[in-house]
Protein backbone atom coordinates (compact mmCIF):
# COMPACT_ATOMS: atom_id res chain seq x y z
CA UNK A 1 0.00 0.00 0.00
CA UNK A 2 2.89 2.26 0.58
CA UNK A 3 3.31 2.24 -3.15
CA UNK A 4 0.04 4.05 -3.47
CA UNK A 5 1.86 7.20 -3.54
CA UNK A 6 1.39 9.94 -5.99
CA UNK A 7 3.99 9.99 -8.60
CA UNK A 8 7.03 12.23 -8.53
CA UNK A 9 5.33 14.82 -10.54
CA UNK A 10 2.93 15.82 -7.83
CA UNK A 11 5.94 17.18 -6.07
CA UNK A 12 6.96 20.66 -6.98
CA UNK A 13 10.02 21.56 -8.91
CA UNK A 14 12.48 22.39 -6.21
CA UNK A 15 14.19 25.03 -8.19
CA UNK A 16 11.48 27.45 -7.40
CA UNK A 17 9.90 28.50 -10.64
CA UNK A 18 10.99 31.99 -11.50
CA UNK A 19 8.05 34.27 -11.25
CA UNK A 20 8.06 35.83 -14.69
CA UNK A 21 9.84 39.12 -14.58
CA UNK A 22 8.53 39.76 -11.10
CA UNK A 23 11.19 41.08 -8.81
CA UNK A 24 12.09 38.93 -5.86
CA UNK A 25 9.37 39.07 -3.22
CA UNK A 26 10.42 40.62 0.02
CA UNK A 27 10.64 37.27 1.71
CA UNK A 28 9.95 33.84 0.33
CA UNK A 29 8.95 32.55 3.72
CA UNK A 30 6.29 35.13 4.32
CA UNK A 31 4.97 34.50 0.86
CA UNK A 32 4.61 30.79 1.59
CA UNK A 33 2.95 31.54 4.86
CA UNK A 34 0.58 33.91 3.16
CA UNK A 35 -0.46 31.31 0.65
CA UNK A 36 -0.47 28.54 3.19
CA UNK A 37 -3.03 30.37 5.26
CA UNK A 38 -5.14 31.08 2.23
CA UNK A 39 -4.97 27.58 0.79
CA UNK A 40 -8.12 25.73 1.83
CA UNK A 41 -6.67 22.39 0.79
CA UNK A 42 -3.83 22.88 3.18
CA UNK A 43 -5.72 23.99 6.19
CA UNK A 44 -8.74 21.75 5.78
CA UNK A 45 -6.41 18.78 5.39
CA UNK A 46 -4.31 20.02 8.28
CA UNK A 47 -7.34 20.44 10.49
CA UNK A 48 -8.54 16.91 9.86
CA UNK A 49 -5.13 15.44 10.63
CA UNK A 50 -4.83 17.64 13.68
CA UNK A 51 -8.27 16.60 14.86
CA UNK A 52 -7.33 12.95 14.78
CA UNK A 53 -3.93 13.60 16.32
CA UNK A 54 -5.57 15.43 19.20
CA UNK A 55 -8.13 12.64 19.54
CA UNK A 56 -5.30 10.12 19.70
CA UNK A 57 -3.63 12.08 22.47
CA UNK A 58 -6.64 13.18 24.44
CA UNK A 59 -8.95 10.27 23.64
CA UNK A 60 -7.44 7.72 26.02
CA UNK A 61 -8.08 10.18 28.82
CA UNK A 62 -11.72 10.52 27.83
CA UNK A 63 -12.45 6.89 28.44
CA UNK A 64 -12.33 5.03 31.69
CA UNK A 65 -12.07 1.64 30.07
CA UNK A 66 -9.14 -0.58 29.31
CA UNK A 67 -8.48 -1.41 25.67
CA UNK A 68 -9.34 -5.07 26.14
CA UNK A 69 -11.60 -4.73 29.13
CA UNK A 70 -15.12 -6.11 29.01
CA UNK A 71 -17.12 -3.14 30.03
CA UNK A 72 -20.55 -3.31 28.54
CA UNK A 73 -23.23 -5.47 27.08
CA UNK A 74 -21.77 -7.39 24.15
CA UNK A 75 -22.40 -6.23 20.59
CA UNK A 76 -24.39 -3.17 21.52
CA UNK A 77 -24.75 -0.33 19.01
CA UNK A 78 -23.42 3.16 19.67
CA UNK A 79 -25.01 4.84 22.67
CA UNK A 80 -24.34 7.65 25.11
CA UNK A 81 -22.50 5.19 27.31
CA UNK A 82 -20.45 3.62 24.50
CA UNK A 83 -20.00 6.17 21.78
CA UNK A 84 -18.89 3.72 19.16
CA UNK A 85 -20.75 0.73 20.60
CA UNK A 86 -19.15 -2.44 21.86
CA UNK A 87 -17.54 -5.54 20.35
CA UNK A 88 -18.95 -9.04 20.60
CA UNK A 89 -17.16 -9.32 23.92
CA UNK A 90 -18.48 -6.03 25.21
CA UNK A 91 -15.24 -4.13 24.79
CA UNK A 92 -15.64 -0.42 24.18
CA UNK A 93 -14.98 0.32 20.50
CA UNK A 94 -14.25 3.98 21.15
CA UNK A 95 -11.50 3.09 23.59
CA UNK A 96 -9.94 0.74 21.09
CA UNK A 97 -10.33 3.36 18.41
CA UNK A 98 -8.46 6.13 20.21
CA UNK A 99 -5.67 3.77 21.18
CA UNK A 100 -5.50 2.48 17.64
CA UNK A 101 -5.26 6.04 16.35
CA UNK A 102 -2.21 6.57 18.50
CA UNK A 103 -0.56 3.48 17.08
CA UNK A 104 -1.32 4.66 13.56
CA UNK A 105 0.32 8.00 14.17
CA UNK A 106 3.36 6.35 15.69
CA UNK A 107 3.72 4.02 12.72
CA UNK A 108 3.18 6.91 10.34
CA UNK A 109 5.72 9.20 11.96
CA UNK A 110 8.29 6.54 12.60
CA UNK A 111 7.83 4.55 9.40
CA UNK A 112 7.49 7.67 7.31
CA UNK A 113 10.46 9.20 9.10
CA UNK A 114 12.71 6.22 8.56
CA UNK A 115 11.70 5.95 4.94
CA UNK A 116 12.34 9.67 4.50
CA UNK A 117 15.78 9.44 6.08
CA UNK A 118 16.82 6.43 4.03
CA UNK A 119 15.31 7.92 0.90
CA UNK A 120 17.03 11.24 1.45
CA UNK A 121 20.38 9.69 2.26
CA UNK A 122 20.32 7.48 -0.79
CA UNK A 123 18.89 10.21 -2.98
CA UNK A 124 21.36 12.88 -1.86
CA UNK A 125 24.42 10.68 -2.06
CA UNK A 126 23.46 9.17 -5.39
CA UNK A 127 22.50 12.49 -6.89
CA UNK A 128 25.47 14.40 -5.54
CA UNK A 129 28.22 11.88 -5.95
CA UNK A 130 27.07 10.45 -9.25
CA UNK A 131 29.27 7.93 -11.03
CA UNK A 132 29.70 4.48 -9.64
CA UNK A 133 28.12 5.35 -6.28
CA UNK A 134 25.05 6.54 -8.11
CA UNK A 135 25.03 3.46 -10.27
CA UNK A 136 25.14 1.10 -7.30
CA UNK A 137 22.57 3.01 -5.28
CA UNK A 138 20.36 3.26 -8.31
CA UNK A 139 20.37 -0.46 -8.87
CA UNK A 140 19.61 -0.95 -5.20
CA UNK A 141 16.76 1.52 -5.36
CA UNK A 142 15.33 -0.13 -8.42
CA UNK A 143 15.43 -3.52 -6.81
CA UNK A 144 13.56 -2.40 -3.73
CA UNK A 145 11.22 -0.40 -5.92
CA UNK A 146 10.11 -3.31 -8.04
CA UNK A 147 9.75 -5.73 -5.16
CA UNK A 148 6.11 -5.68 -4.10
CA UNK A 149 6.34 -4.03 -0.69
CA UNK A 150 3.49 -5.82 0.94
CA UNK A 151 4.74 -9.22 -0.14
CA UNK A 152 8.13 -8.40 1.35
CA UNK A 153 6.53 -7.20 4.56
CA UNK A 154 4.43 -10.32 4.81
CA UNK A 155 7.49 -12.48 4.41
CA UNK A 156 9.37 -10.55 7.06
CA UNK A 157 6.47 -10.27 9.48
CA UNK A 158 5.57 -13.91 9.18
CA UNK A 159 8.98 -14.92 10.44
CA UNK A 160 9.30 -12.27 13.06
CA UNK A 161 9.28 -13.56 16.60
CA UNK A 162 7.77 -10.64 18.42
CA UNK A 163 6.07 -7.85 16.58
CA UNK A 164 5.45 -4.45 18.04
CA UNK A 165 4.34 -1.16 16.61
CA UNK A 166 7.94 -0.01 16.45
CA UNK A 167 9.27 -3.07 14.64
CA UNK A 168 6.42 -2.77 12.23
CA UNK A 169 7.21 0.88 11.60
CA UNK A 170 10.89 0.09 11.09
CA UNK A 171 10.20 -2.53 8.48
CA UNK A 172 7.69 -0.38 6.70
CA UNK A 173 10.22 2.43 6.71
CA UNK A 174 12.92 0.18 5.36
CA UNK A 175 10.82 -0.95 2.42
CA UNK A 176 9.00 2.17 1.34
CA UNK A 177 11.81 4.61 0.58
CA UNK A 178 12.73 3.89 -3.03
CA UNK A 179 10.42 6.27 -4.85
CA UNK A 180 11.46 9.05 -2.49
CA UNK A 181 15.12 8.26 -3.10
CA UNK A 182 14.50 8.39 -6.82
CA UNK A 183 12.75 11.71 -6.72
CA UNK A 184 15.30 13.28 -4.39
CA UNK A 185 18.13 11.96 -6.51
CA UNK A 186 16.74 13.70 -9.55
CA UNK A 187 16.36 16.97 -7.66
CA UNK A 188 19.81 16.72 -6.16
CA UNK A 189 21.18 16.08 -9.60
CA UNK A 190 19.94 19.39 -10.88
CA UNK A 191 20.89 21.29 -7.74
CA UNK A 192 24.37 19.81 -7.64
CA UNK A 193 25.09 21.44 -10.98
CA UNK A 194 24.19 24.89 -9.70
CA UNK A 195 26.72 27.60 -9.11
CA UNK A 196 26.43 27.91 -5.37
CA UNK A 197 27.08 24.21 -4.97
CA UNK A 198 30.01 24.43 -7.32
CA UNK A 199 31.37 27.28 -5.30
CA UNK A 200 31.05 25.35 -2.07
CA UNK A 201 32.72 22.38 -3.65
CA UNK A 202 35.60 24.48 -4.92
CA UNK A 203 36.18 25.97 -1.51
CA UNK A 204 36.60 22.48 -0.12
CA UNK A 205 33.45 22.13 1.93
CA UNK A 206 33.01 18.44 2.80
CA UNK A 207 30.29 16.49 0.98
CA UNK A 208 28.17 15.97 4.05
CA UNK A 209 28.14 19.69 4.73
CA UNK A 210 27.33 20.57 1.16
CA UNK A 211 24.40 18.19 1.19
CA UNK A 212 23.11 19.33 4.54
CA UNK A 213 24.03 22.97 4.21
CA UNK A 214 23.49 23.78 0.55
CA UNK A 215 21.35 21.16 -1.13
CA UNK A 216 18.88 20.08 1.50
CA UNK A 217 17.75 23.58 2.50
CA UNK A 218 17.16 24.42 -1.14
CA UNK A 219 14.68 21.61 -1.47
CA UNK A 220 13.24 21.67 2.01
CA UNK A 221 9.71 22.10 0.78
CA UNK A 222 10.17 19.12 -1.45
CA UNK A 223 11.55 17.04 1.39
CA UNK A 224 8.70 18.01 3.65
CA UNK A 225 6.17 16.94 1.09
CA UNK A 226 8.00 13.70 0.55
CA UNK A 227 7.75 13.02 4.24
CA UNK A 228 4.03 13.73 4.26
CA UNK A 229 3.45 11.22 1.51
CA UNK A 230 5.63 8.63 3.22
CA UNK A 231 3.75 9.29 6.46
CA UNK A 232 0.41 8.49 4.85
CA UNK A 233 1.86 5.53 3.01
CA UNK A 234 3.22 4.03 6.22
CA UNK A 235 -0.17 4.28 7.91
CA UNK A 236 -1.82 2.47 5.02
CA UNK A 237 0.86 -0.19 4.88
CA UNK A 238 0.56 -0.83 8.59
CA UNK A 239 -3.21 -1.10 8.36
CA UNK A 240 -2.87 -3.68 5.63
CA UNK A 241 -0.35 -5.73 7.56
CA UNK A 242 -2.43 -5.58 10.72
CA UNK A 243 -5.46 -6.64 8.79
CA UNK A 244 -3.76 -9.76 7.54
CA UNK A 245 -2.95 -10.56 11.15
CA UNK A 246 0.72 -9.66 10.93
CA UNK A 247 0.44 -6.55 12.99
CA UNK A 248 1.66 -5.90 16.50
CA UNK A 249 1.20 -8.92 18.69
CA UNK A 250 0.37 -6.68 21.59
CA UNK A 251 -1.50 -3.43 21.71
CA UNK A 252 -4.23 -2.10 19.51
CA UNK A 253 -4.22 -0.57 16.06
CA UNK A 254 -6.82 0.48 13.56
CA UNK A 255 -5.92 -2.36 11.21
CA UNK A 256 -6.12 -4.82 14.07
CA UNK A 257 -9.61 -3.57 14.92
CA UNK A 258 -10.75 -4.34 11.40
CA UNK A 259 -8.99 -7.68 11.58
CA UNK A 260 -10.79 -8.52 14.82
CA UNK A 261 -14.09 -7.30 13.47
CA UNK A 262 -13.76 -9.63 10.50
CA UNK A 263 -12.55 -12.56 12.59
CA UNK A 264 -15.44 -12.14 14.97
CA UNK A 265 -18.04 -11.94 12.22
CA UNK A 266 -18.93 -8.28 12.67
CA UNK A 267 -20.01 -8.28 9.04
CA UNK A 268 -22.31 -11.26 9.37
CA UNK A 269 -23.73 -10.05 12.68
CA UNK A 270 -24.19 -6.52 11.36
CA UNK A 271 -21.88 -4.85 13.91
CA UNK A 272 -20.95 -2.07 11.50
CA UNK A 273 -19.82 0.25 14.29
CA UNK A 274 -16.89 -2.08 14.89
CA UNK A 275 -15.25 -1.81 11.48
CA UNK A 276 -16.48 1.50 10.09
CA UNK A 277 -14.64 3.93 12.42
CA UNK A 278 -11.10 2.54 12.07
CA UNK A 279 -11.14 2.39 8.27
CA UNK A 280 -12.85 5.72 7.95
CA UNK A 281 -10.28 7.31 10.20
CA UNK A 282 -7.44 5.89 8.12
CA UNK A 283 -9.02 7.09 4.90
CA UNK A 284 -9.59 10.54 6.36
CA UNK A 285 -6.12 10.89 7.83
CA UNK A 286 -4.24 9.63 4.82
CA UNK A 287 -6.57 11.39 2.41
CA UNK A 288 -6.07 14.64 4.27
CA UNK A 289 -2.32 14.17 4.20
CA UNK A 290 -2.43 13.74 0.44
CA UNK A 291 -4.77 16.68 0.18
CA UNK A 292 -2.42 18.81 2.25
CA UNK A 293 0.30 17.75 -0.10
CA UNK A 294 -1.55 19.22 -3.05
CA UNK A 295 -2.08 22.37 -1.06
CA UNK A 296 1.61 22.58 -0.26
CA UNK A 297 2.40 21.96 -3.87
CA UNK A 298 0.34 24.97 -4.80
CA UNK A 299 1.97 27.06 -2.12
CA UNK A 300 5.51 26.17 -3.12
CA UNK A 301 4.85 26.11 -6.82
CA UNK A 302 3.30 29.40 -7.94
CA UNK A 303 2.49 28.13 -11.40
CA UNK A 304 -0.23 25.99 -9.92
CA UNK A 305 -1.83 28.74 -7.90
CA UNK A 306 -3.99 30.09 -10.64
CA UNK A 307 -5.47 27.58 -12.91
Amino acid at each position, binding site marked *: *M*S*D*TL*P*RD*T*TLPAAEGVPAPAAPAPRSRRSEFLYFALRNP*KLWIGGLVVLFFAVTAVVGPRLTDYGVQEYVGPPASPPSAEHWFGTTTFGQDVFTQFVHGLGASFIVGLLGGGIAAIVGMTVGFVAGYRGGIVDEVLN*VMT*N*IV*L*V*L*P*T*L*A*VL*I*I*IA*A*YLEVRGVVTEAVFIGLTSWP*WAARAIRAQTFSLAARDFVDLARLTGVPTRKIILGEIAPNMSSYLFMTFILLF*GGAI*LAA*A*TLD*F*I*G*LGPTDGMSL*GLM*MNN*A*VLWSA*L*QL*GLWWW*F*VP*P*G*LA*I*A*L*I*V*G*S*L*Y*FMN*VGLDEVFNP*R*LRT*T
Partner: protein
Amino acid sequence: MRRYFGRKLSIYGLTFFVAVTVNWMIPRFMPGDPIESMVARLTMRPETVEPMREYFERFFGYDVPLWKQYLNFWGALLQGDLGTSVWLFPRPVTSVIMGSLPYTLGLLLPAILLSWWAGNKFGAIAARNRWLDNTFLPVGYLLTATPYMWLALVLAFLLAWQFDLFPLAGAYSVTLRPNWSWTFVWDLLRHWFLPFATLFIVAFGGWAIGMRNMIIYELEADYSRYLESLGAPRRLIRRYSFRNALLPQITGLALQLGAVVAGALVTEIVFSYPGLGWVTLKAVENLDFYLLQGVFLFIVAGVLVANFLIDVVYVLVDPRTRLGMQGRAA
Protein backbone atom coordinates in the same frame (compact mmCIF):
# COMPACT_ATOMS: atom_id res chain seq x y z
CA MET B 1 17.42 -0.35 -27.96
CA ARG B 2 19.40 -3.42 -27.06
CA ARG B 3 21.29 -1.47 -24.44
CA TYR B 4 18.15 -0.06 -22.93
CA PHE B 5 16.44 -3.39 -22.63
CA GLY B 6 19.67 -5.02 -21.61
CA ARG B 7 19.93 -2.65 -18.72
CA LYS B 8 16.31 -3.04 -17.73
CA LEU B 9 16.52 -6.81 -17.97
CA SER B 10 19.68 -6.97 -15.92
CA ILE B 11 18.05 -4.93 -13.18
CA TYR B 12 15.04 -7.19 -13.23
CA GLY B 13 17.29 -10.21 -13.26
CA LEU B 14 19.24 -8.89 -10.32
CA THR B 15 16.04 -8.11 -8.47
CA PHE B 16 14.84 -11.63 -9.05
CA PHE B 17 18.14 -13.02 -7.88
CA VAL B 18 17.99 -10.98 -4.68
CA ALA B 19 14.36 -11.95 -4.11
CA VAL B 20 15.12 -15.62 -4.56
CA THR B 21 18.13 -15.50 -2.30
CA VAL B 22 16.41 -13.60 0.48
CA ASN B 23 13.47 -15.87 0.08
CA TRP B 24 15.63 -18.93 0.40
CA MET B 25 17.49 -17.58 3.38
CA ILE B 26 14.62 -16.43 5.54
CA PRO B 27 13.13 -19.74 6.65
CA ARG B 28 16.58 -21.17 7.17
CA PHE B 29 17.82 -18.48 9.46
CA MET B 30 14.63 -17.55 11.23
CA PRO B 31 13.11 -19.22 14.25
CA GLY B 32 10.57 -21.91 13.61
CA ASP B 33 11.09 -25.21 11.89
CA PRO B 34 8.48 -26.03 9.29
CA ILE B 35 9.36 -29.72 9.40
CA GLU B 36 8.88 -29.82 13.12
CA SER B 37 5.50 -28.16 12.99
CA MET B 38 4.45 -30.51 10.25
CA VAL B 39 5.52 -33.55 12.22
CA ALA B 40 3.75 -32.19 15.26
CA ARG B 41 0.61 -32.00 13.20
CA LEU B 42 0.94 -35.51 11.86
CA THR B 43 1.61 -37.62 14.89
CA MET B 44 0.63 -38.01 18.48
CA ARG B 45 3.09 -40.74 19.31
CA PRO B 46 6.54 -39.82 20.57
CA GLU B 47 8.10 -42.91 19.03
CA THR B 48 7.14 -41.86 15.51
CA VAL B 49 8.43 -38.31 15.87
CA GLU B 50 12.08 -38.99 15.09
CA PRO B 51 11.59 -41.26 12.08
CA MET B 52 9.06 -38.83 10.66
CA ARG B 53 11.32 -35.86 11.15
CA GLU B 54 14.21 -37.63 9.47
CA TYR B 55 12.00 -38.68 6.66
CA PHE B 56 10.61 -35.23 5.97
CA GLU B 57 13.96 -33.53 6.34
CA ARG B 58 15.15 -35.77 3.59
CA PHE B 59 11.96 -35.13 1.66
CA PHE B 60 12.38 -31.37 1.81
CA GLY B 61 16.07 -31.57 1.06
CA TYR B 62 17.42 -30.38 4.38
CA ASP B 63 19.86 -33.24 4.67
CA VAL B 64 22.53 -31.73 2.40
CA PRO B 65 24.99 -28.86 3.06
CA LEU B 66 23.60 -25.33 2.88
CA TRP B 67 25.34 -24.34 -0.33
CA LYS B 68 23.93 -27.40 -1.97
CA GLN B 69 20.47 -26.62 -0.67
CA TYR B 70 20.79 -23.23 -2.25
CA LEU B 71 21.86 -24.63 -5.60
CA ASN B 72 19.12 -27.22 -5.44
CA PHE B 73 16.66 -24.47 -4.74
CA TRP B 74 17.68 -22.67 -7.89
CA GLY B 75 17.75 -25.88 -9.87
CA ALA B 76 14.23 -26.70 -8.84
CA LEU B 77 13.08 -23.14 -9.36
CA LEU B 78 14.35 -23.04 -12.92
CA GLN B 79 12.30 -26.13 -13.61
CA GLY B 80 9.25 -24.38 -12.26
CA ASP B 81 9.34 -26.36 -9.05
CA LEU B 82 8.63 -24.21 -6.02
CA GLY B 83 8.64 -27.09 -3.61
CA THR B 84 5.88 -28.81 -1.72
CA SER B 85 3.29 -27.14 0.41
CA VAL B 86 3.42 -28.10 4.05
CA TRP B 87 -0.12 -27.03 4.70
CA LEU B 88 -1.60 -28.86 1.72
CA PHE B 89 0.94 -31.64 1.77
CA PRO B 90 1.84 -33.21 -0.61
CA ARG B 91 0.51 -30.79 -3.13
CA PRO B 92 3.22 -28.92 -5.10
CA VAL B 93 3.31 -25.22 -4.39
CA THR B 94 2.99 -24.48 -8.09
CA SER B 95 -0.22 -26.42 -8.25
CA VAL B 96 -1.67 -24.49 -5.31
CA ILE B 97 -0.69 -21.21 -6.94
CA MET B 98 -2.04 -22.21 -10.32
CA GLY B 99 -5.30 -23.21 -8.68
CA SER B 100 -5.86 -19.78 -7.23
CA LEU B 101 -4.17 -17.68 -9.89
CA PRO B 102 -7.14 -17.46 -12.28
CA TYR B 103 -9.26 -15.86 -9.57
CA THR B 104 -6.65 -13.27 -8.74
CA LEU B 105 -5.93 -12.48 -12.36
CA GLY B 106 -9.63 -12.31 -13.04
CA LEU B 107 -9.85 -9.61 -10.42
CA LEU B 108 -6.58 -7.85 -11.03
CA LEU B 109 -6.40 -7.49 -14.78
CA PRO B 110 -9.82 -5.93 -15.30
CA ALA B 111 -9.47 -3.82 -12.17
CA ILE B 112 -6.04 -2.48 -13.12
CA LEU B 113 -6.75 -1.87 -16.78
CA LEU B 114 -10.26 -0.51 -16.37
CA SER B 115 -9.40 1.74 -13.46
CA TRP B 116 -6.40 3.02 -15.33
CA TRP B 117 -8.43 3.75 -18.40
CA ALA B 118 -11.42 5.26 -16.64
CA GLY B 119 -9.31 7.11 -14.09
CA ASN B 120 -7.25 8.78 -16.77
CA LYS B 121 -10.32 9.76 -18.71
CA PHE B 122 -12.01 11.14 -15.68
CA GLY B 123 -8.92 12.93 -14.41
CA ALA B 124 -8.55 14.68 -17.74
CA ILE B 125 -12.15 15.78 -17.61
CA ALA B 126 -11.82 16.95 -14.04
CA ALA B 127 -8.74 18.98 -14.88
CA ARG B 128 -10.65 21.15 -17.33
CA ASN B 129 -13.71 21.71 -15.23
CA ARG B 130 -13.19 23.85 -12.19
CA TRP B 131 -16.35 22.77 -10.43
CA LEU B 132 -15.75 19.10 -11.09
CA ASP B 133 -12.15 19.53 -10.05
CA ASN B 134 -13.05 21.11 -6.76
CA THR B 135 -15.62 18.44 -6.00
CA PHE B 136 -13.64 15.51 -7.18
CA LEU B 137 -10.28 16.37 -5.72
CA PRO B 138 -11.15 15.72 -2.06
CA VAL B 139 -13.16 12.64 -2.99
CA GLY B 140 -10.35 11.37 -5.14
CA TYR B 141 -7.76 11.77 -2.44
CA LEU B 142 -10.06 10.08 0.02
CA LEU B 143 -10.46 7.19 -2.39
CA THR B 144 -6.73 6.64 -2.89
CA ALA B 145 -6.28 6.83 0.85
CA THR B 146 -8.99 4.28 1.56
CA PRO B 147 -7.69 0.98 2.81
CA TYR B 148 -8.84 -1.65 0.34
CA MET B 149 -10.13 -3.93 3.05
CA TRP B 150 -12.24 -1.23 4.56
CA LEU B 151 -13.94 -0.37 1.30
CA ALA B 152 -14.45 -4.08 0.79
CA LEU B 153 -16.08 -4.33 4.20
CA VAL B 154 -18.30 -1.35 3.62
CA LEU B 155 -19.38 -2.53 0.17
CA ALA B 156 -20.03 -5.99 1.52
CA PHE B 157 -21.99 -4.61 4.43
CA LEU B 158 -24.15 -2.32 2.32
CA LEU B 159 -24.62 -4.20 -0.92
CA ALA B 160 -24.45 -7.77 0.28
CA TRP B 161 -25.55 -7.77 3.90
CA GLN B 162 -27.99 -4.90 4.04
CA PHE B 163 -29.53 -5.04 0.58
CA ASP B 164 -28.62 -8.52 -0.50
CA LEU B 165 -27.75 -7.45 -4.04
CA PHE B 166 -24.59 -9.51 -4.22
CA PRO B 167 -23.26 -12.60 -2.51
CA LEU B 168 -21.15 -11.95 0.55
CA ALA B 169 -18.34 -14.35 -0.13
CA GLY B 170 -16.88 -17.03 -2.33
CA ALA B 171 -16.29 -17.40 -6.05
CA TYR B 172 -19.51 -19.14 -7.03
CA SER B 173 -22.56 -20.64 -5.41
CA VAL B 174 -22.19 -23.78 -3.39
CA THR B 175 -24.74 -25.70 -5.39
CA LEU B 176 -23.17 -25.02 -8.75
CA ARG B 177 -20.53 -27.02 -10.45
CA PRO B 178 -18.23 -25.08 -12.81
CA ASN B 179 -19.41 -25.30 -16.38
CA TRP B 180 -20.07 -23.01 -19.28
CA SER B 181 -23.75 -22.47 -18.75
CA TRP B 182 -25.17 -18.97 -18.47
CA THR B 183 -26.35 -19.73 -14.98
CA PHE B 184 -22.84 -20.44 -13.89
CA VAL B 185 -21.18 -17.54 -15.67
CA TRP B 186 -23.76 -15.17 -14.28
CA ASP B 187 -23.25 -16.58 -10.82
CA LEU B 188 -19.49 -16.23 -11.24
CA LEU B 189 -19.84 -12.60 -12.28
CA ARG B 190 -22.10 -11.81 -9.35
CA HIS B 191 -19.51 -13.13 -6.95
CA TRP B 192 -16.76 -11.36 -8.85
CA PHE B 193 -18.34 -7.97 -8.85
CA LEU B 194 -17.85 -6.68 -5.30
CA PRO B 195 -14.17 -7.58 -4.98
CA PHE B 196 -13.62 -6.16 -8.43
CA ALA B 197 -15.50 -2.98 -7.56
CA THR B 198 -13.37 -2.54 -4.44
CA LEU B 199 -10.14 -2.72 -6.37
CA PHE B 200 -11.52 -0.62 -9.16
CA ILE B 201 -12.80 2.22 -7.00
CA VAL B 202 -9.66 2.69 -4.93
CA ALA B 203 -7.37 2.46 -7.93
CA PHE B 204 -9.66 4.67 -9.96
CA GLY B 205 -9.24 7.50 -7.47
CA GLY B 206 -5.48 7.22 -7.72
CA TRP B 207 -5.35 7.29 -11.48
CA ALA B 208 -7.83 10.12 -11.80
CA ILE B 209 -5.87 12.27 -9.41
CA GLY B 210 -2.59 11.34 -11.03
CA MET B 211 -3.95 12.31 -14.42
CA ARG B 212 -5.47 15.51 -13.10
CA ASN B 213 -2.15 16.61 -11.60
CA MET B 214 -0.19 15.48 -14.58
CA ILE B 215 -2.36 17.23 -17.10
CA ILE B 216 -2.17 20.48 -15.20
CA TYR B 217 1.60 20.30 -15.48
CA GLU B 218 1.35 19.46 -19.14
CA LEU B 219 -1.00 22.38 -19.78
CA GLU B 220 1.67 24.60 -18.29
CA ALA B 221 4.43 23.05 -20.36
CA ASP B 222 6.31 25.10 -22.95
CA TYR B 223 4.78 23.33 -25.88
CA SER B 224 1.30 24.17 -24.60
CA ARG B 225 2.25 27.81 -24.17
CA TYR B 226 3.67 27.90 -27.66
CA LEU B 227 0.54 26.39 -29.12
CA GLU B 228 -1.48 28.99 -27.27
CA SER B 229 0.73 31.69 -28.68
CA LEU B 230 0.03 30.34 -32.13
CA GLY B 231 -3.70 30.54 -31.47
CA ALA B 232 -4.24 26.78 -31.51
CA PRO B 233 -7.67 25.81 -30.19
CA ARG B 234 -7.91 24.55 -26.61
CA ARG B 235 -9.13 21.21 -27.82
CA LEU B 236 -5.91 20.53 -29.62
CA ILE B 237 -3.81 21.59 -26.66
CA ARG B 238 -5.80 19.41 -24.29
CA ARG B 239 -5.47 16.50 -26.62
CA TYR B 240 -1.71 16.86 -26.64
CA SER B 241 -1.58 17.31 -22.90
CA PHE B 242 -3.71 14.25 -22.29
CA ARG B 243 -1.57 12.14 -24.47
CA ASN B 244 1.66 13.34 -22.94
CA ALA B 245 0.26 13.05 -19.44
CA LEU B 246 -0.58 9.44 -20.19
CA LEU B 247 3.05 8.54 -20.60
CA PRO B 248 4.02 9.00 -16.96
CA GLN B 249 0.80 7.24 -16.08
CA ILE B 250 2.10 4.21 -17.92
CA THR B 251 5.23 4.27 -15.80
CA GLY B 252 2.96 4.79 -12.84
CA LEU B 253 1.18 1.60 -13.79
CA ALA B 254 4.40 -0.30 -13.24
CA LEU B 255 5.00 1.39 -9.91
CA GLN B 256 1.47 0.81 -8.72
CA LEU B 257 1.37 -2.87 -9.55
CA GLY B 258 2.71 -3.87 -6.17
CA ALA B 259 0.10 -1.78 -4.43
CA VAL B 260 -2.80 -3.16 -6.43
CA VAL B 261 -1.59 -6.69 -5.85
CA ALA B 262 -1.53 -5.91 -2.15
CA GLY B 263 -5.03 -4.51 -2.43
CA ALA B 264 -6.18 -7.66 -4.18
CA LEU B 265 -4.76 -9.76 -1.38
CA VAL B 266 -6.72 -8.06 1.38
CA THR B 267 -9.84 -7.70 -0.73
CA GLU B 268 -9.82 -11.41 -1.41
CA ILE B 269 -9.53 -11.99 2.30
CA VAL B 270 -12.63 -9.95 3.03
CA PHE B 271 -14.68 -11.70 0.39
CA SER B 272 -13.09 -15.09 0.91
CA TYR B 273 -12.33 -15.05 -2.76
CA PRO B 274 -10.15 -18.09 -3.40
CA GLY B 275 -7.27 -16.28 -5.07
CA LEU B 276 -3.63 -15.76 -4.21
CA GLY B 277 -4.43 -13.38 -1.36
CA TRP B 278 -6.50 -15.95 0.36
CA VAL B 279 -3.78 -18.53 -0.19
CA THR B 280 -1.25 -16.10 1.28
CA LEU B 281 -3.34 -15.60 4.37
CA LYS B 282 -3.69 -19.33 4.79
CA ALA B 283 0.00 -19.85 4.26
CA VAL B 284 0.68 -17.32 6.99
CA GLU B 285 -1.86 -18.86 9.31
CA ASN B 286 -0.58 -22.35 8.70
CA LEU B 287 3.09 -21.40 8.79
CA ASP B 288 3.52 -22.85 5.35
CA PHE B 289 6.80 -21.19 4.51
CA TYR B 290 7.21 -23.02 1.24
CA LEU B 291 3.87 -21.85 -0.01
CA LEU B 292 4.54 -18.36 1.26
CA GLN B 293 7.88 -18.33 -0.50
CA GLY B 294 6.27 -19.63 -3.63
CA VAL B 295 3.57 -16.99 -3.64
CA PHE B 296 6.15 -14.32 -2.93
CA LEU B 297 8.40 -15.42 -5.77
CA PHE B 298 5.45 -15.73 -8.02
CA ILE B 299 4.25 -12.23 -7.28
CA VAL B 300 7.76 -10.85 -7.69
CA ALA B 301 8.15 -12.64 -10.99
CA GLY B 302 4.73 -11.46 -12.08
CA VAL B 303 5.48 -7.87 -11.18
CA LEU B 304 8.84 -8.04 -12.94
CA VAL B 305 7.31 -9.43 -16.08
CA ALA B 306 4.58 -6.82 -15.96
CA ASN B 307 7.21 -4.14 -15.48
CA PHE B 308 9.04 -5.36 -18.50
CA LEU B 309 5.89 -5.42 -20.58
CA ILE B 310 5.19 -1.88 -19.50
CA ASP B 311 8.73 -0.92 -20.49
CA VAL B 312 8.08 -2.35 -23.92
CA VAL B 313 4.76 -0.55 -24.22
CA TYR B 314 6.37 2.65 -23.08
CA VAL B 315 9.03 2.42 -25.70
CA LEU B 316 6.36 1.87 -28.31
CA VAL B 317 4.33 4.90 -27.34
CA ASP B 318 6.98 7.41 -26.35
CA PRO B 319 9.15 8.51 -29.26
CA ARG B 320 11.59 10.12 -26.86
CA THR B 321 12.62 6.81 -25.36
CA ARG B 322 12.42 4.97 -28.61
CA LEU B 323 14.53 7.41 -30.61
CA GLY B 324 16.87 8.13 -27.76
CA MET B 325 17.78 4.49 -27.81
CA GLN B 326 18.41 4.33 -31.50
CA GLY B 327 20.93 7.08 -31.24
CA ARG B 328 19.31 8.98 -34.06
CA ALA B 329 19.27 12.13 -32.03
CA ALA B 330 21.51 14.75 -33.54
